């Protein structure tokens, strides 16, 4: 399974990071998420990073980061390895 980040659709709200931490810890703990989101409001850049702790939401019915992304910026592609890092500049 591969989590693909559609860079042009991302609003940098951080919801994917927060729900990821909920999957890992059962609490809201963004430091413990596999995803990190960072944006620079002055130049419009957004950084989105997925690290190796991602377990493809093992035990969940679906990938939670994609489920809660209302902006359709995260897409699950089955049968592909996860992409670890992407960066976007506006």
């Amino acid at each position, binding site marked *: 399974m591969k989590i693909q980040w559609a860079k042009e659709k991302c609003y940098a*709200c*951080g919801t994917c990071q927060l729900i990821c*931490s909920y999957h890992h810890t059962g*609490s809201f*703990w*963004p430091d413990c998420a596999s995803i990190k989101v960072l944006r620079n409001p002055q130049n419009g850049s957004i950084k989105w990073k997925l690290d190796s702790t991602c377990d493809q939401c093992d035990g969940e019915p679906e990938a939670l980061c994609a489920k809660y992304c209302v902006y359709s910026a995260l897409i699950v592609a089955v049968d592909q390895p996860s992409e670890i890092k992407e960066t976007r500049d506006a």
Partner: protein
Amino acid sequence: MLSSQVIKGCLAGKILRVNLSTDSVCTEDSHPHAARTLGGRGINSLIMLDEIDPHTRWSDPENLLCFGVGSLVGTMVPGACRVDVSSMSVFTGGKGSANVGGFWGKELKYAGYDNVIIQGRSPKPVYIYIEDDRVEIRDAGFIWGQTTFATEEILRRELGDDFIRIALIGPAGENQVRGSAVMVDTARAAGGSGIGCVMGSKNLKAIVVRGHGNIKVADPERFMREVDRCYRQCAEEPRAPIMRKSLTNFYTDPDFEGWDKIMVVRNGQDDYWERKKRIKLMNWETGVPSLRKGMRACYVCPTGCQSYMEIDRGAYAGTKGEGFWVNTIMGNACRMDQDDPETVVYSWILTNELGLDADYVGSVLAWVFELYEKGIITDKDTDGLSLTWGNGSAFIEMIKRLAYRKGLGNLLADGAVEAAQQIDKGSEYYLCHMKGQPSVEPFRVPKGWGLAVCTSPVAGRHLRGATLGGNRFGPRPRPADFNATDYKRQAYYTVWQAKTKELEDNLGICNYCGTWSGANFMTLTNFAEFVNAGMGIEVTEDNLMEHFAAVGRNLEKAFNTLHTEMTRKEDLPPLRFREQPVKSGPYKGALADESMYNQMLDEFYQLWGWDVKTGFQTRACLEGLGLHEIAEKLSKQGKLIESK
């Protein structure tokens, strides 16, 4: 009501107190305060009422600057990111409060704090660094004098951490310009009440936060079921995708009703802005939408209403930044009669960079432009600057002079009412302010909106109950049937909206997700379930509205009564809007009719349980809410009405 119940989740658990006079830091348990108010602004209000003496002035070290993060912030509740910043208002001397979204609030919760209370005054510029249990008051000499944009960059570089979040002031706040904002994430302003001016008076440049901890909820499964319900409601809400493309897109249609209902033109000379100017400002090809290069959202927000702008042409080419709102059109365009898209966008980004409240800017600058037009001030007063309507470079120059206290800007920086007293020559009549707080709000066309602005506890702002007709309520809680432009039923809906806003501010939910305009896909039912599942207590929707929302409003009302001479007569619209009708457009002739406003006020006070004659609170109202100690304070001052 909740004193016997124990809050089991959502809170970080501590209030951080920082005394800048004694260079000391301590913490206390936030649960007792949250049990009385639910959290957020409610906690700030309780502490201010308890600890600030009525003789204290906003500029005294004894004044408190209170940051209160909503109790649901840090969780997955949609749009839960809001922070209340409260202090004494530099304009009214009463309760000051401003509210801001972004990412700072959640960081503070993850660091372990629900509120930060700043006491005292530092002898030299400082900033506060908070990283979990580590709290330090640090020298800010190297950032003092810097703009908000530059300060963010310098602090990130200096601290070597991209994930810090910063609440800060710009040059305007440092210079104690009355209309200064506390800025968050460079583009979000806690703007009202001169909160940034108070921060400057304390020699406090910034509060930097980094939190590594977590927020737990009482019943995670139940809580997430409600999150899912809200996401379904959001998906079914037709306005949500419109908001995501920018709320201001409605204004690309020159016939959109908002143009005629809430825009005040040339400082109040009219409430109708010419069609060709609407088109020039907001057309897709060369207007503001052509400068929008992307959209962004606040923390965990599915509404996503924030524009990212880049000016790629003209005198301000190269300017970048987030933010363009309906208020930008209200204050910086219509009120200033400024239809040049680049100038309007640049003026907004500049106010962010200098740390000014844009509503204050739009209000006081439109006022001096009108004074110039009427010959009340001349080139001699403006140092040769031609303050003619539509003069964009003069508008921009005046913003800088305001922030840096140059020339006429220095006069305005000490407060618009004070400036009017100095200028004299009948100038105060043209100044739009409520209780001293300059305002960009309409009073003549939307009656409920005007009533909310008139009665706002923070004076002159619309986010404490403004309504714009039944359509703004959407399908939930039920379709409301009233017309924004007549007086009927306005008080009822204004009180309803004011109460839901109290809850949203105490819980930290953005009203664009909640019950106000915008996507408004969440309801009181959702709020109650989040409180119950998240905080582990049991409340009903009625408890929320009739108890907690009423407590929140009454705390601020009591602070105003104790600290100022405000009475009922200060709740009427500015005289100009009662005397001069709208000159053109579909609402030509509309007026803020004094007798009709008085009728709305009668109903408004009755609905809150306050005394109709004076506007004061009653013993029955306060004691019914368990606010006995507040009733005693008011009684001692002779400002409590004993019989309802």
